[in-house]
């Protein structure tokens, strides 16, 4: 009995902390279903779902998060392959580059992209300077800029989990396929790729949720011209003090994120079941 009590005492502070956080989260969810007088009301959901602007922003956030996740997977998978298979020096160089990317201050990173994509930025100066275009191309304050920024910011979230799984897959399987006459590409696609699906799925979850609820990237690279759902939540809460609408948007965002997590988990279980 003594050890039970000790255990409870050890866990108590952390449990209290997280309980405090969940209380705060619940207070938002509660706020989304009551009106100003405190009565139960779905008014805030009605004004969110009934407003075409908010619906456009919500759907666009899902769509952009979806295709940025696909791009991150396409770019990230080769990086994870290179990380797990090349010589130690090359692998640590890649890890270092990813770590710099991951740990660098987010605001600074996005500011760097603004310097590159702006009308007077690196890319446009090169394009105009070389005579390819006569006036600067619009690369930011639009969807393109936001998508580029999100891809760069989310890439490590995709690569790290895939690499973690690839490290555990023995190359012998592919060697066996090769010795049985399969080509390298076929061995990769039919042996390694299916085995690495659990890593791909966790990368997909992290990337999707990160992009879907992004606030800073669309804030800076969208510059108010291209908003995502995170910007709506912030604006309503901090600039307009419309807490109930912000709470309803947050609840919808949370439900979609959790739905994505559950859907991917189910897919991963179905996949594991299919292999057995």
């Amino acid at each position, binding site marked *: 009995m003594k050890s039970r009590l000790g255990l409870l005492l050890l866990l108590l502070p952390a449990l209290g902390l997280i309980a405090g956080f969940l209380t705060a989260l619940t207070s938002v969810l509660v706020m989304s279903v009551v009106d100003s007088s405190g009565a139960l009301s779905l008014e805030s959901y009605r004004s969110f779902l009934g407003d075409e602007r908010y619906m456009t922003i919500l759907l666009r956030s899902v769509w952009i998060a979806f295709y940025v996740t696909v791009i991150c997977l396409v770019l990230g998978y080769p990086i994870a392959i290179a990380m797990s298979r090349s010589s130690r020096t090359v692998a640590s160089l890649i890890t270092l580059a990813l770590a710099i*990317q991951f740990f660098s201050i*987010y605001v600074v990173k996005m*500011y760097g992209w603004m310097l590159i994509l702006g009308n007077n930025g690196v890319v446009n100066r090169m394009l105009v300077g070389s005579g390819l275009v006569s006036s600067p191309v619009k690369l930011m304050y639009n969807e393109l800029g936001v998508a580029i920024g999100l891809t*760069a910011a989310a890439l490590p979230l995709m690569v790290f989990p895939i690499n973690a799984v690839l490290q555990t897959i023995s190359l012998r399987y592919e060697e066996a396929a090769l010795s049985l006459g399969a080509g390298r590409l076929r061995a990769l696609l039919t042996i390694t790729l299916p085995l690495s699906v659990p890593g791909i799925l966790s990368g997909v979850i992290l990337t999707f949720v990160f992009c879907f609820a992004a606030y800073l990237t669309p804030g800076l690279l969208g510059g108010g011209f291209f908003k995502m759902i995170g910007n709506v939540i912030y604006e309503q809460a901090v600039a307009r003090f419309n807490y109930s609408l912000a709470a309803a948007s947050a609840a919808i965002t949370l439900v979609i994120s959790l739905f994505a997590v559950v859907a991917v988990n189910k897919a991963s279980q179905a996949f594991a079941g299919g292999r057995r």
Partner: protein
Amino acid sequence: MRTGAGSRDPLTTLATVIAFVVLFVATFPLFVTAITAFNATNETVFPPNGWSLRWFRNIARQPELVQAAGFSLVLAVVSSAISISLGVVSAVALTRRKFFGRDLIDAFLMSPLLVPQVILGLSFLVFFVRVGSRQPFLNLLFLHVVITFPYALRVIRSSLTRMNPKLEEAAVGLGASSLKSFFLVTFPQMRPSLFVAIFFCFVVSFDNFTATAFLTVSGATLPV
């Protein structure tokens, strides 16, 4: 034997080339920002029109920025210290004792990671407005501990799982109290993971913009 088959494989070479190109492009903005800081003119262009340290002198002359940097630093240090102490204690409880509902408690403790930052920020804003707490530092500290704690727990927990519990049992078997065996046997083995955890917590706190922006008037911490 991992590299033996892979290194001369044309596909791996191709993957490595892709990796270098993509990572070069992704890291490029950071170099641009760093170099632009030494720009001599008011126009922010790259490559700069001239070189100077004037922007750094400028920072030193702006008391708000210096103050914000100090505030960020104190916040990151204090919140990391709290998260790590909580992380050590909880990780020991979660790994050294078997009990009913352990996985549930683990998932519960990791839950802040699943909630998007904007929603975290909004939750705390609404919560503090409702409670009427007007202590900016304490409010932010609570938020930052919640954000950093799951990282601390995950890192410390995984190092404890990899340790050999027999060593502790041996210490206890030889007559050490469980507290003594923790400090003499477990803690020294945990030390590398503590540094990793400190690094994670510090960076996560110092860098946090999204959730923090909800709780502050512009400019309280450095990123904001």
